[in-house]
């Protein structure tokens, strides 16, 4: 949260500096007076608002500025907006556009609807008072090339993709095979592309539903920053090379798993979210497949160790998602999403606890399956007990506080768990006695 506050503060300072510079060019006297009274360290919200108002009502400028609302800062894609309790100051990013020619040689278009209002200030020709605040918020649906990377990153849920790719990497690293860098990189890129494709299609399907949920209302398709056609084309341009890379660059099994996962996520999980609570279990399988893919990329086959890793990720999804969904019940109910937290709250908490305990059991199974040494369950016990304890508290208390604690714990539990597994990986035996199966 501190990082967000710092980043927001530096944005505000940057914007204020820019505004003040422009304003000074306009009316030095008024602003010098203001500056004298302002504390240079922290700009107050009123000061910022005043400068913004001055800026926006300026007319005699020869070039136009477009104010684009900055997407609300979210540290993780899973974090619900409602859980951020700090007051949000509005931060606007300003970008100058090239000056349009203000020639009056416009062809009248008969098909155009009757103008009920004078044209908005963007054309730079109308008096201030007639333009409403609402009109200022209309944006031209024109794709700008420099915006595209950011838009595509949000479309492909880049942070979630990063998480998926790290679980795949963990699967690759934990597999009992010598670490092969070229193979690893191909797996990394292929899985990343497949994940981007799946996430884009997911967003493509969910536009009106995403608009109605606080957590997802800033997505690119919801905001019209990209057309559905472009989103689908982008997804195809990621899926085809991604799956091809996995199939021919790594091995067909990994490619098949990747393709299957894309299908499972886009065609099963996404529509199922609005039909039945079974979506959570399907979604857990979707989360379990990437480490499986990492394993098969390294070894070329699915064995017990692979399924153990998949099982760990599968079980992890429940405390993670069930805890998150506890705070989103109102949005789910209004938006028509079938989630356990709304329809079967007891089941929701019971399942979360059950799978916390399953994680403990699977840690113990890891050395038995030759994935790790016996040190692993011992050193992982503290974090496993802690998440189980929070799972129990969530089960018993059934309130927002316990759900948030469990959710945040799941965020650091998984990376730490995988890291500990890696450090305790069973070393490749010299002889063939007790060696890991290939």
């Amino acid at each position, binding site marked *: 949260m501190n990082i967000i506050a710092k980043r927001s503060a530096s944005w505000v300072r940057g914007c204020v500096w820019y505004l003040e510079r422009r304003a000074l060019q306009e009316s030095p006297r008024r602003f010098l007076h203001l500056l004298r009274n302002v504390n240079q360290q922290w700009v107050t919200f009123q000061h910022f608002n005043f400068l913004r108002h001055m800026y926006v009502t300026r007319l005699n400028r020869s070039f136009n500025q477009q104010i684009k609302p900055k997407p609300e800062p979210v540290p993780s894609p899973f974090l619900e907006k409602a859980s951020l309790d700090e007051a949000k100051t509005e931060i606007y990013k300003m970008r100058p556009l090239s000056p349009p020619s203000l020639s009056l040689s416009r062809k009248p278009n008969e098909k155009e609807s009757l103008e009920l209002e004078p044209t908005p200030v963007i*054309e730079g020709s109308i008096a201030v008072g007639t333009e409403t605040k609402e009109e200022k*918020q209309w944006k031209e649906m024109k794709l700008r090339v420099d915006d595209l990377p950011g838009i595509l990153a949000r479309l492909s849920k880049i942070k979630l993709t990063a998480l998926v790719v790290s679980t795949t990497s963990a699967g690759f690293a934990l597999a009992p095979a010598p670490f092969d860098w070229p193979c690893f990189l191909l797996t990394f890129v292929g899985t990343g592309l497949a994940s981007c494709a799946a996430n884009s299609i997911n967003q493509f*399907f969910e536009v009106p539903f995403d608009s109605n949920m606080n957590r997802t*209302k800033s997505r690119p398709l919801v905001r019209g920053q990209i057309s559905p056609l472009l989103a689908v084309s982008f997804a195809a341009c990621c899926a085809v090379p991604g799956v091809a890379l996995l199939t021919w660059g790594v091995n067909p099994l990994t490619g098949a798993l990747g393709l299957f996962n894309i299908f499972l996520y886009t065609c099963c999980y996404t529509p199922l979210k609005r039909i039945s609570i079974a979506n959570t279990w399907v979604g857990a399988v979707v989360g379990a497949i990437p480490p499986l893919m990492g394993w098969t990329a390294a070894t070329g086959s699915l064995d017990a160790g692979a399924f153990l890793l998949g099982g760990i990720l599968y079980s992890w999804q429940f405390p993670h998602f069930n805890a998150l969904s506890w705070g989103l*019940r*109102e949005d789910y109910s209004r938006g028509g999403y079938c989630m356990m937290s709304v329809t079967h709250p007891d089941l929701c908490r019971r399942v979360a606890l059950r799978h916390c305990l399953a994680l403990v059991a699977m840690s113990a199974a890891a050395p038995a399956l030759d994935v790790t040494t016996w040190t692993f369950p011992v050193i992982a016990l503290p974090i496993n007990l802690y998440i189980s304890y929070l799972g129990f508290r969530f089960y018993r208390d059934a*309130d927002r506080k316990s759900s948030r604690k469990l959710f945040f714990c799941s965020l650091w539990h998984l990376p730490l768990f995988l890291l500990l597994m890696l450090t305790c990986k069973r070393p490749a035996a010299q002889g063939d006695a007790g060696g890991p199966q290939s």
Partner: protein
Amino acid sequence: MAQVSRFCPPRKSCHDWIGPPDKHSNLQPVHFYIPENESSLEQKLRELRQETQERNQQFWANQNLTFLKEKEEFIDSRLKAKGLELRAESGQKATLNAEEMADFYKEFLSKNFRKHMYCNRDWYKRNLAITFFMGKVALERIWKKLRLKQKKTSN
């Protein structure tokens, strides 16, 4: 609950314009640009998008307003059942916490399940149709440009 937008884009613009989220439906309305030489395919696409937008707007505005109304009724009935005042001494409206609201959320979701099923099917069909037509229109435009170039080079 379709609200007519009073927005008019600048005459010079040849793109669609998207507005702020509607206060009832939370959907961002699009003002469609009609080019002078709009082909029949482009017109079909625009009309499909317009119709989809209106249907979505109507559905979600209605849905959200119903939700708010029924939520208020639920809170009132629960507070009355508890024998509590609807407003605290400070004048602020009394509310129930998330756990008390859980019954309402469950009931609302199951009551509207059929409606959502229908809406989902409709939306998926329309979304795919719109995207398909967008693809056709894009190809048509590329073809037109190529033909124009060919004409120019042959002249």
